[in-house]
């Protein structure tokens, strides 16, 4: 339609007019860009196939079925996928994916609390605490995160003793240079019911809160719900747990002659990585929280005090909801950054996606295009999910305007 329009115009115009016609120019530039980009891709992909053929590299995804043939540091991904060197390359991919998600998940939880704490401490009226928080931010934000990962990994390995002389906490938790050993939970039949009870407890609590909030809106009567919610969330699963005859026991680590046996080993690579990422990202989250709190108008606090709210009520009901509106979007962006930075594990050999799949498998198979493509796709999907979450949150928190 539009093109016909242009063409019909073109006939009635002189050459000079055509040259200076905006629509013609727009059309020309877009076609030129398209041609340029397709030409580029055509050459690149042509060269790619020529080079791959010349080097005798295989193509396609059949390598995923091949035997991996190497050991992976034992961690969650390993346990969940029953990984052995006989497993396929696809299993390596899953192991890496699980390990990436574990680091991201645990890191996000720790960094949120740490960032929240530091951000609030930064604004404390206690001089020492405010300065300490400021020093923390300046120190950890201005050191590359990869350097921090190396540093903590090195410290962990050097500071903690040899397995023979493991530090023991009541013979339940052990700590040595090979990592932290926790009791390994072994679930028996029926434990699923306890988990279901836990989830049901949470759902009931949400409904209960809604009910009491409505009641508060209608009648102004405030009900304390903390007791009820603890009872629902912790009590309900506890009752089921006891009724089913404690369907859970722990496999404790035992100090053998040279090494610890059993238990759940949390490798130092994981601890160093999660710690460094959380500490680093927390500085950004703290700054986000701080700017959020500072963005709340002073009049809001004064108004809250004027209508007789206590300090806690003012913080909880007036300041925080407004501060979080400013602070949450950058915080979610930092979650994405943390997830992306987890790929730095390659440097210390924690077996996440880029280290085991994008590293070891790539070196063995040599099919860089397929392997890196898969890895990039995973990060694309993760960041897409986080963007969707961000949009959702933004929409929910947007101030409804008249």
């Amino acid at each position, binding site marked *: 339609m539009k093109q016909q329009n242009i063409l019909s115009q073109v006939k009635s115009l002189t050459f000079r007019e055509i040259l200076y016609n905006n629509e013609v120019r727009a059309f020309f530039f877009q076609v030129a860009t398209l041609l340029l980009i397709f030409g580029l891709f055509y050459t690149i992909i042509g*060269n790619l196939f020529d080079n791959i053929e010349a080097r005798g590299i295989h193509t396609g995804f059949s390598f995923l079925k091949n035997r991996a043939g190497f050991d992976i540091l034992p961690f969650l991904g390993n346990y969940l996928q029953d990984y052995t060197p006989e497993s396929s390359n696809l299993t390596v991919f899953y192991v890496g994916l699980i390990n990436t998600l574990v680091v991201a998940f645990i890191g996000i939880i720790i960094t949120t609390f740490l960032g929240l704490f530091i951000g609030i401490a930064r604004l404390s009226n*206690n001089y020492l*605490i405010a300065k*300490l928080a400021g020093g923390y931010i300046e120190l950890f934000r201005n050191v*590359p995160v990869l350097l921090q990962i190396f540093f903590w990994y090195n410290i962990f390995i050097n500071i903690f003793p040899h397995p023979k002389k493991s530090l023991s906490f009541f013979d339940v938790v052990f700590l040595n240079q090979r990592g932290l050993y926790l009791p390994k939970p072994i679930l028996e039949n029926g434990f699923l019911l306890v988990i279901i009870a836990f989830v049901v407890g949470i759902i009931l609590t949400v409904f209960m809160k809604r009910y009491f909030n409505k009641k508060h809106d209608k009648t102004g009567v405030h009900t304390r719900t903390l007791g009820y919610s603890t009872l629902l969330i912790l009590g309900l699963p506890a009752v089921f747990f006891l009724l089913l005859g404690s369907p859970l026991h722990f496999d404790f680590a035992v100090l053998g002659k040279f090494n610890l046996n059993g238990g759940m080993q949390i490798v130092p690579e994981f601890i160093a990585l999660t710690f460094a990422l959380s500490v680093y990202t927390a500085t950004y989250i703290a700054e986000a929280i701080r700017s959020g709190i500072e963005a709340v108008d002073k009049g809001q606090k004064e108004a809250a005090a004027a209508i007789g709210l206590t300090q806690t009520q003012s913080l909880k009901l007036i300041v925080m909801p407004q501060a979080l509106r400013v602070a949450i979007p950058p915080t979610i962006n930092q979650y994405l950054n943390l997830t992306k930075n987890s*790929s*730095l594990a390659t440097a210390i050999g924690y077996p996440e996606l880029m280290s085991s799949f994008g590293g070891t498998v790539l070196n063995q198979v040599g099919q*860089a295009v397929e392997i*890196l493509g898969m890895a990039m796709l995973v990060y694309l999907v993760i960041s897409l999910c986080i963007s969707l979450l961000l949009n959702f949150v933004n929409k929910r928190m947007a101030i409804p305007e008249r």
Partner: protein
Amino acid sequence: MAVNELQSTRKPPIFQIGAILWLRTNLFSSWVNGLLTLASLYLLYISIPPLLDWMVLSANFNFGTVNILGFEIKFSEVMADNQNCGREAACWPYIYEKLYMYIYGFYPREESWRPDTVYGLTALLFVIVRLVRNYKYKNRVILSLIVAYPIVSYILLAGGFGLLPVVETHRWGGLLLTLVIASVGIIVSFPIGVVLALGRRSNLRVIKLFSTLFIEFIRAVPLITILFMASFVLPLFLESGNNFDKLLRALIGIALFQAAYFAEVVRGGLQAIPKGQYEAADAIGLSYLQKNALIILPQALKISIPNIVGSSISLFKDTTLVLIIGLMDMLAMVNMTSQDPYWLGRETEGYVFVTMVMWVILYSMSRYSRKLEIRFNTENKN
């Protein structure tokens, strides 16, 4: 009469003046605050003294005789070696011994004046830019410097052209490499970023689509995947297919990566320009290029300067990642030099040293960016 007697003013209670008042209001204003203060003091007590002890008090400073700018300073009779250094505290002679590696990598020792000259030129560049601020032809001077500086630096560092002996890029390392990657990354990616930002705000759908796709794709993946791509796949994209310079490959990856981030920063600046500016430029008949070069970009870039510096700081931190694809930057030197059989197991000293160097550079950059932010903020308010 007593009424007219001069009353001496009472002294304020001791709790309400000076240090005690300060302590009461700032540290012990309430029970909770007091406890928090004590807890933080304890935290400082358990962390600072051991750190100070490790770094300074018990540390080994036996450098032997050091020649600093012609002055001979004697620290000890002989330089300490790894054995008599002790494991309980820092062994700084290791850093002294490996300092050349940390700063120049494997750059030939007899040629080290060349990086030094580049460092000097860089400092001189900043001084000149400040000095000519009020000069009539300052734009011409700055522009010619900006064009000449990379060329001169490249000739000095890489050699060739029959002027200087060639030093291959795989011999560059340490701080030199870090600075080269960071500065080339920033200088090359900035124009690409501006073009991408304009492309993303363009009315031409095809251009907008491809700019957006590129920016969003790059921003969604970690830098490592891009570096791996640049290192493994980029050679396959080219006609000859053979391995060209590793540093150049990394630089291409980093420049493309950083361009996407600069594009978003510049786009933020572009969005802040009022629509009236565009319309006014159109009204006086400026072309697209004239409109952007003369009206829009000067304002947009000025607003986004603090964020540009912020993004450059990120890039500087990200340069450490090149060690994963085998380039010997400053951080890689720690792992490299502590493999030396004479200095085994001195990683901690290395990491602490690199941390200090990096921290000083990054902290001054971030202070500078904050200063700019304050300066531009006040200008906007007027």
